[in-house]
């Protein structure tokens, strides 16, 4: 699979994080911002960086925007500009345009004008944070669909010392175990104790759960809720 190329337009809080994260993963990243100082910070990290006005269609084309696989528009609170830039990008023919929305109305407009995906980063993080308070036992939570989610939870005490075959998660509780995160105690070179984290994906039915294991489960909300109560 050829390496995907990205353009990040707008180096605000969201833009700089996504640009950095994509670069770290080895993707080709072009960054664009009208602020020279912002762009300077990224010059060494990304493939190409441009100081330009993103509403300038000519300048965007010269920067090679038509060739990227994915353009991410993260223009802060600037609703009008982000709408305009999205229109321009779709007109130029960028394959996938992902836009950060300021609010729901903004998001609806973006969808209407052809944004391939609209994201509400603060809302999504807020929802996950709220979920984590519903059940303090949940380490992480991903909504898969309106009826199913994936949760990461400390293995309940009553599962300790039992194999997956004995626990029968699917038969008894209706959930699927995807992975086990386990801490392996080690002694560092300095002689101090520490942990190494091991992850077992799709463990065999003979795998035994132990105290400290964090299990990733997939299932319907009601079924996962039953596990949380154990």
């Amino acid at each position, binding site marked *: 699979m050829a390496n995907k190329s990205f353009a990040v337009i707008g180096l605000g809080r969201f833009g700089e994080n996504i640009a950095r994260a994509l670069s770290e993963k080895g993707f080709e990243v072009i960054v664009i911002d009208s602020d020279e100082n912002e762009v300077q910070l990224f010059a060494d990290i990304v493939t190409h960086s441009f100081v330009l006005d993103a509403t300038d269609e000519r300048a965007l084309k010269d920067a090679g925007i038509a060739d990227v696989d994915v353009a991410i528009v993260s223009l802060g609170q600037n609703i009008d500009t982000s709408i305009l830039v999205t229109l321009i990008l779709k007109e130029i023919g960028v394959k996938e345009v992902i836009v950060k929305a300021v609010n729901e109305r903004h998001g609806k407009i973006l969808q209407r004008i052809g944004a391939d995906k609209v994201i509400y980063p603060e809302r999504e993080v807020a929802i996950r944070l709220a979920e984590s308070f519903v059940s303090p036992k949940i*380490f992480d939570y991903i909504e898969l669909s309106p009826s199913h989610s994936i949760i990461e939870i*400390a293995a309940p005490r009553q599962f300790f010392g039992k194999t997956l075959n004995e626990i029968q998660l699917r038969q008894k509780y209706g959930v699927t175990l995807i992975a086990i995160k386990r*801490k392996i*105690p080690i*002694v*560092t070179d300095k002689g*101090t*104790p*520490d*942990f190494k984290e091991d992850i077992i994906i799709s463990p065999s039915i003979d795998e035994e759960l*132990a*105290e*400290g294991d*964090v299990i990733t489960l997939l299932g319907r909300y009601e079924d996962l809720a039953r596990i949380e109560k154990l």
Partner: protein
Amino acid sequence: MGKKISVSAQDYIEKGQFYLINKKYSEAIKQFQKALKLKPDVLIYFHLGLAYEASCQIPQAIEMFRKAIELDANHKEAIEHLNSLTNQ
């Protein structure tokens, strides 16, 4: 006339470490708590932090690492663990 055997904090720490290496976290915590009663110490707080973290008792782990850092502001490992637990 029986001989009184005094168990030092060090004995509890060693027992705790043994339990820790063998992933018996509840037992490890008990031993470290006993050690703590005899002698509050950076090392004991750090070990407690590890034991709580390993057994997924995160708020307690955070408290222990904080206490360790209170006693030794330069304890690199306690700082690393505290950061990783509070930066989810």
